[in-house]
């Protein structure tokens, strides 16, 4: 079925890719945002401590004996103790003059008094966070500006950040995995709906054109709707043409019967040999046409019924016995004896009318193509599967035709002048298929044809 469908991508894959891609993107965004937030919070923490340390130093600034003095407490630095033993630097300036501390730590110019300024700098490969504040002391000789910078390395901070990053990475990964699983699940349930529809359509018999009645998701409703309308249109067209054929066959048969009876009557009254010959040819052609019309009608009936079989338990043996009984007069005319071989009761769930039609065609063929004074065997077998075979002692099938004989209107080379339409085996085959079986033609080794209907 899919062989001649142009496939471009897969809805499920597309859906899965979009959803997992989205999840990956979201996980990444989550990671980056949480990390940035954590960095901000951690930095805030360090800044708070630096600022507290700085102001505890700055607060001790006094002017004593005309000199600026800072007698800062032990806790100013001990509060800077971290798990990672971060290094600490400081500088105390009065204006531009270093009072004590590290001289490379310079006070930024844009420092407003009573304000804490935070900076991140890199010195000798160490990342330092610096907090600087200043105060104005009023001495006897005017205002004096004292500024204090406290700097700390960021080892503990980056340790914390790394820890957080690792946890957030796990969180992001977990989020991604869960979303991916969800995405795959969503994609497969969505495509599962499609698959279920496909199987329910594929599982149908070739003749089943009834609408899809199973509930489908709303997105698939238009597709299923048009499929249903399409199928019902197709069904309608098919029924119409079957009806038309049946009607046509019927309409032809009736006038043909009239023509035939007139030709027969005329034949009684005509004596000239050539006139008789042409009348006989005419009767034959009429027979042929009428047979064809009858078979066409049967065929149309079989095609129609095959769509909705009228199932019942059919006793094959009984059915065959009736058939044989009905055809005995024809057999007797040719001196053919019909024997039945039955292994026991054989019932089958099927359409009796169709089965009867098919089997009649088989026996009819055997009677028609086998010479007079021969035997005909109808055998019902139950193993390996239930089957009905019709054996005759005629000339059998030509091996090169055996494959094609069950085609429509195909007749064999051996048909001679026997009346026929070439639809008999076609009907038998279609009935077999409608019952889930098949029709096999073969030749018997001792001569004669063997036609078997397997169910």
């Amino acid at each position, binding site marked *: 079925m899919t062989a001649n469908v142009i496939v471009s991508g897969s809805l499920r894959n597309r859906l899965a890719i979009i959803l997992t891609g989205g999840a990956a993107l979201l996980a990444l965004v989550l990671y980056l945002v949480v990390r940035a937030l954590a960095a901000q919070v951690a930095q805030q923490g360090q800044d708070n401590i630096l600022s507290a340390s700085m102001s505890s130093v700055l607060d001790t600034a006094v002017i004593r004996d005309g000199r600026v*003095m800072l*007698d*800062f407490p*032990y806790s100013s*630095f001990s509060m800077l103790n971290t798990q990672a033993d971060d*290094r600490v630097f400081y500088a105390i300036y009065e204006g531009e003059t270093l*009072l004590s501390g590290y001289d490379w730590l310079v006070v930024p110019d844009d420092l407003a008094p009573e304000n804490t300024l935070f900076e991140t700098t890199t010195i000798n490969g*160490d990342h330092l966070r610096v907090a600087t504040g200043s105060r104005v002391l009023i001495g006897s000789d005017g205002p004096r500006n004292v500024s204090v910078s406290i700097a700390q390395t960021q080892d503990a901070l980056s340790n914390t950040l790394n820890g957080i990053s690792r946890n957030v990475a796990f969180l992001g990964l977990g989020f991604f995995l869960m979303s991916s699983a969800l995405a795959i699940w969503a994609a497969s349930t969505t495509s599962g709906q499609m698959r279920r529809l496909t199987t329910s359509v594929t599982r149908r018999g070739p003749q089943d054109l009834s609408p899809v009645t199973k509930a489908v998701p709303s997105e698939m409703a238009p597709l299923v709707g048009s499929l249903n309308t399409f199928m019902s249109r197709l069904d309608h067209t098919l029924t119409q043409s079957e009806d038309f054929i049946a009607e046509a066959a019927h309409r032809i048969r009736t006038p043909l019967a009239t023509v035939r009876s007139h030709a027969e009557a005329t034949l009684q009254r005509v004596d000239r040999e050539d006139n008789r010959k042409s009348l006989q040819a005419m009767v034959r052609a009429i027979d042929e046409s009428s047979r064809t019309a009858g078979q066409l009608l049967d065929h149309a009936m079989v095609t129609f019924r095959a769509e909705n079989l009228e199932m019942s338990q059919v006793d094959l043996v009984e059915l065959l016995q009736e058939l044989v009984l009905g055809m005995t007069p024809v057999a007797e005319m040719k001196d053919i004896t019909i024997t039945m071989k039955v292994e026991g009761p054989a019932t089958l769930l099927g359409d009796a009318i169709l089965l009867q039609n098919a089997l009649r065609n088989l026996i009819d063929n055997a009677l028609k193509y086998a010479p007079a004074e021969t035997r005909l065997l109808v055998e019902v077998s139950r193993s390996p599967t239930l089957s009905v075979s019709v054996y005759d002692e005629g000339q059998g099938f030509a091996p090169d035709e055996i494959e094609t004989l069950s085609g429509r209107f195909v007749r064999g080379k051996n048909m001679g002048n026997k009346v026929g339409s070439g639809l008999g085996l076609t009907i038998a085959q279609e009935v077999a298929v409608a019952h889930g079986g098949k029709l096999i033609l073969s030749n018997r080794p001792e001569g004669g044809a063997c036609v078997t209907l397997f169910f």
Partner: protein
Amino acid sequence: MRYLVLLILLLAPFGILAREWEDLQVFGSSDRPPLRILSSTDTSFFAPIIEDFIAMSPNTSVEYFVTGTVELDQMFRAAPDQFDIVISSAMDLQLKLANDGFSSTVMNVDHPDWAQWHNSLFAFTSEPAAIVINRKAFDGLNIPGRRQDLIQLMRDHPDRFQGRVGTYDVRQSGLGYLFATQDARATETYWRLTEVMGRVGAKLYCCSGQMIDDLRSGDLIMAYNVLGSYAQAQAAISDDLMVILPSEFPTTMMRTILASAAAPDPQRADRFVRHLLKLQSVGDPAIFPLPPLAVSEDFQTQRTINLDPALMTYLDQMKREAFIREWEDAIVQVD
């Protein structure tokens, strides 16, 4: 038992100019440059440790330089590439060296967290500051248990103590300054004690060794803030000496080691630090004669000085000036 060894070193090619060392000893012999240890610890305490190290790593020689904590700090800052290892009892100076980037890190050492700083400064002893008395000279006086008792004794018997009390000169000794500042931080008694010691004309010393010598000779009757480990070693030999740990709290110092960041052979310096720390943890007194680290329970009661950046507080120029001024006001009697 302390020599002041005057050594003129011909080390011009290495940039170490001729100078005065308290002691210098060379251990082992090797065709490679020696491992240079700059230390404030008496050679006698370190000789077994160094010999054990040499036994473990053949073709190694060690030069062991001994000097005071303050000079040691200045010398090392001036020429950090001349030395592999720095060992000092002045925790504050050592921490500042590590803080200023003079030390290299020694990673993944199995060492208690409180006894190391920044993976580069490692404490390996717990040594309380002690009151040491000459038992004979103390005859008839109550043995003091706390600082307060000491104050009382000196107030009650100024004549017996006059000129016979010793303590560190905090201007000269890094360790003395560390003990003094930590005492002052912990209790107001320190200042009263210093004042009383000043009143009885306390003698000021650069080092524990000399204080102990003078105690043994009977020149001193009592010394305050003597390095307990040295005093204990001497008290074991001399019955006259008695070591008293102040019962309210003994200020406890941890001796520290660091490997120079500019060490000529960083791997060997690293190995030495690890070796020392391992000997400390094993604690065999034959090889490691120093008092090992206190276990963490004694840590609080002993009032061990914490290894943290706050140690730099009293190294601040202004704070130091102010402290010394106050100390001088208390101890140096101008009358």
